[in-house]
């Protein structure tokens, strides 16, 4: 049976399309990033500017802000495609849905996760993060933010058909984010104390591999439910 274009071509086409759309609406890239920076700046104002206190809480603040920023940006992942019918075309296409979904999630991560990783060291300087912890911060963000995009996409796919999905989305996916948060911050804390943190990184990497394999199927199944 002729299946039209190859899997690789389909994947790349969708990836490029999503990136191109985002580059033409630059606000979609910058708004979550600005939100991330603003949330982080609120903390020193709220808890006081003492460097010792900030050093202690910096990993948690950066990671919680990253979680919220990722959730905020996720809402738009399938929204436009759902309302203009592109999503249904994707479901009908001969290529496996999980592959197409993976392309969309990868595009989302490139647009929101990567800028977040790039701007994180700057915020770490502002929060007086331990100089030992920078490597751990970057490594946990690099391993953790794709997991956030993958897990979050399940929640978005489940709620995309609902009119008031926003609040529900946070209830659905924040509990799933908790393990990532725990291991990421404990790795950064360990690095700050000059302890080995490769164990936490290994668990984060395992989460990434696991969600990379399983989440696309869950996202695909959820999209089929949502579009009915």
């Amino acid at each position, binding site marked *: 049976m002729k299946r039209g274009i190859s899997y690789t071509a389909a994947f790349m086409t969708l990836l490029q399309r999503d990136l191109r759309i985002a580059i033409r609406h630059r606000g979609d890239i910058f708004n979550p990033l600005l939100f991330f920076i603003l949330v982080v700046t609120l903390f020193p104002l709220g808890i006081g500017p003492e460097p010792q206190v900030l050093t202690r809480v910096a990993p948690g603040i950066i990671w919680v802000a990253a979680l919220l920023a990722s959730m905020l940006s996720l809402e738009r992942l399938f929204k436009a495609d759902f309302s203009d019918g592109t999503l249904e075309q994707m479901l009908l296409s001969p290529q496996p849905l999980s592959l197409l979904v993976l392309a969309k999630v990868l595009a989302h991560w490139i647009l929101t996760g990567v800028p977040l990783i790039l701007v994180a060291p700057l915020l770490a300087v502002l929060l007086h993060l331990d100089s030992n912890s920078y490597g751990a911060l970057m490594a946990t963000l690099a391993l953790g933010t794709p997991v956030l995009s993958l897990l979050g996409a*399940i929640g978005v796919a*489940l709620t995309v058909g609902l009119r008031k*999905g926003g609040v529900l989305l946070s*209830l659905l996916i924040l*509990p799933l984010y908790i393990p990532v948060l725990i291991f990421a911050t404990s790795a950064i804390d360990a690095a700050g104390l000059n302890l080995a943190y490769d164990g936490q990184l290994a668990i984060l990497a395992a989460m990434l591999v696991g969600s990379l394999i399983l989440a696309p199927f*869950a996202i695909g*199944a*959820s999209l089929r*439910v*949502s579009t009915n």
Partner: protein
Amino acid sequence: MWKWLHSYADPERAYKLSGTLLPWFSILAILLVGTGSIWGLLFAPTDYQQGDSYRIIFIHVPAASMSMAAYMGMAVASFIGLVWQIKSADWAAAAIAPIGAVITFIALLTGAAWGKPMWGTWWVWDARLTSELVLLFLYLGVISLYASFEDKVLAARAAGILAIVGVINIPIIKYSVDWWSSLHQPSTIKITEKSTMSTDMLYPLLINIFGFGMMIGAITLIRYRAEILARNGMRPWVRELAKAEEAK
């Protein structure tokens, strides 16, 4: 065997079967919870370290283990509903969710009440406690996702996917006390080896665990029957049932 099982997917037969099972579950639940609680709270020996405050174990442990068992039950029902498209299984999952949420809340509450005299604090951000709290959030997520769809067939599928994804949390709760050094004590009941608990305390605890299981089964059956009636309100057999009820 599949043919035999499939006949129970029919709502009417499922309704009747749950009706016949309900009294058994209820009687067993009352007997077991009654015996276990009275034995545990009044007659079991006092703990030499914790005094009488350990007695909340007879509520806390059954509630906590049933919170996980109920989640697994819900996830298995959702899985059956998703894979074999059996609607009765979806209704069962919808029936279990609120019960599981309540029992999880009871486990957290009794745990806090036990933690205050023993650890000197109501709550610690400990692996066991945090993962149990996540379980509560997962239940609430499933319930609110189910409630937010107008079309209950879609609602059950969406909530089912979330329930299955959330199963990942169950082994984390179970093994959290072994994987992390935790303030929560490791499990005292072991299936394969000798339990680290004196038998006068163990038996009422085991009775209560089974009793809680039966109780959850009974409440689930009540909710399940209501769910079946609500989803089949237009079917002739439900109407006849309503007529017969009215005539009484």
